[in-house]
């Protein structure tokens, strides 16, 4: 039910137009410094759900920022044929001058929804989706860390982009809320054919959600290994298959990290 794909040229290539294509992406922050990302090739097919794993500081956030077009790679190319990919930032990054609802509203407005009533209804729907009924008028500083993350998720969903990049979206959520949102996210993904790149440190979460799990090595960040997850949805975090693959992936993660040394 699970398969390991060896990395290598062409291994991740998708036949048709991909939703996101990173080709040879290298990122160096200082002139002459060591590259953070080094020759990343990554294609995400339309409607594909890819989970990204890697040690803390290996360059996952940098990769997403580049994929979203917010930072230029030092070398290599980025293509997102459908326009810009929606990015949910690691720091929830809500605008402090707007309420939770207005943050979502702004994304809706900028996406082109002009009817105020419609926007309000949509924002309320998204807030309910992330289990934040009635938080429309709360200011970001009045929300808890997990609540802020959920509002950020709702805002990213409001963009209604065909590609969704998520940077540790559920890190600050309790297990139960997280389960609920896993379900919602999968339902949404199945319904809309969204391409998702999902960064997480929770290996089980990666296996629970992804069709493909990509492991990044660190210093420099390269694609170390990939797994295709063929366990049918609905999966649960507690499922035996999920647990088994998780253990295997964790093992590789451990290897990667010890290889690159302290």
């Amino acid at each position, binding site marked *: 039910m699970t398969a390991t794909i060896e990395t290598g040229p062409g291994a991740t290539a998708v036949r048709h137009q991909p939703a996101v294509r990173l080709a040879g992406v290298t990122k160096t922050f200082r002139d002459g410094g060591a590259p953070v990302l080094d020759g990343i090739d990554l294609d995400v097919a339309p409607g594909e759900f890819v989970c990204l794993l890697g040690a803390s500081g290996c360059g996952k956030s940098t990769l997403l*920022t580049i994929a*979203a077009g*917010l930072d230029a790679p030092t070398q290599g190319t980025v293509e997102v044929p459908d326009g*810009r990919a*929606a*990015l949910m*930032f690691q*720091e929830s*990054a809500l*605008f*402090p*001058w*707007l309420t939770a609802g207005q943050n979502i509203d*702004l*994304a809706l407005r*900028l*996406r082109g929804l002009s009817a105020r009533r419609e926007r309000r209804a949509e924002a309320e729907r998204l807030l309910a989706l992330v289990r934040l009924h009635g938080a429309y008028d709360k*200011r*970001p*500083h*009045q929300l808890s860390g997990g609540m802020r993350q959920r509002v950020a998720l709702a*805002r990213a969903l*409001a*963009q209604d982009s065909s590609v969704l990049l998520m940077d540790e979206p559920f890190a600050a959520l309790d297990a139960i809320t997280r389960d609920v949102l896993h379900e919602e996210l999968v339902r949404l993904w199945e319904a809309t054919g969204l391409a998702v790149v999902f960064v997480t440190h929770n290996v089980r979460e990666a296996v629970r959600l992804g069709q493909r799990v990509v492991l990044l090595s660190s210093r420099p960040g390269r694609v170390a290994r990939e797994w295709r997850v063929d366990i049918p949805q609905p999966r649960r975090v507690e499922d035996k298959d999920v647990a088994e693959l998780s253990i295997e992936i964790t093992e590789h993660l451990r290897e990667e990290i010890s290889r690159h040394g302290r």
Partner: protein
Amino acid sequence: MDAEAVESKDALATVEAGLDALETSSDHEDSTLIRVVRAAYPPLLALALILAVWQLLYASKIWPDWKLPGPSQVYDSLKDAFSNGDVWPAVGHSIGHGAVGFAASVALGTPLGLLVGRFQPVRAGIGPILSGLQSLPSVAWVPPALMFFGPTPAMLYTVVLLGAVPSIAVGVVAGLDHVPPLYLRVGRNIGARGLASVRYVLLPAALPGYLAGLRQGWAFAWRSLLASEIIVQSADLGHSLGFLLKNAQDTNDMAGAFAAIVLILAVGVAVNQLLFVPIERRVLKTRGLA
């Protein structure tokens, strides 16, 4: 350690305690009456203190009264001016000119600041000029402005604009510079380009700094206005606060000059407390900064 040293150490401890105090400020809110009294007593106390010290200095006769007039003389002078009917038109004119000039300065300075703050070449080219202009006193502009426009409101506005526009633009630039880049990235990602980005992200993000800049800009505008009112007097300009002050100074009427200064201070305080302070407080509050 002598008594004084102990005392000063105690004073320091008090200060330190005070410095910490706000950080644990409880969110507890009192009844309206108590709040009003609380809000009113420190300024009143400060005023009373100033008047007391002033009266003391005056009564001590260190200086003759034409050098330091007493509060009562200034009060009489103010009363005279009010009963003359000189004051209201003067205040009206000055505030009117100040408001128009400030509004125009904001309208010009804001986009200018945005351009300078966001475009590196513009910043390199115009930035230094702005800071140069900021360093020229209004008194230097009055004669050329007078030459080109005569003693008309146009001249006043020219001087006000030359004083306030650079200051406001510099304030906008500072506000923009302090915006965390994360917000710009978020803005871009949710689709705020170009003018939408300015309107929905840049300006609101820079708002606290922008307001601080506006406040300084207002100070520049108002000071420039008064400086020109003091230097130039004409029928077209009519009575003004600067005119009152200049008149008193020209006749060495110290009590009158103090009265005019009190009026100018009163207008300055009123504009700040009624306009800027409430806006700033609200902005800070909504952002969880206060």
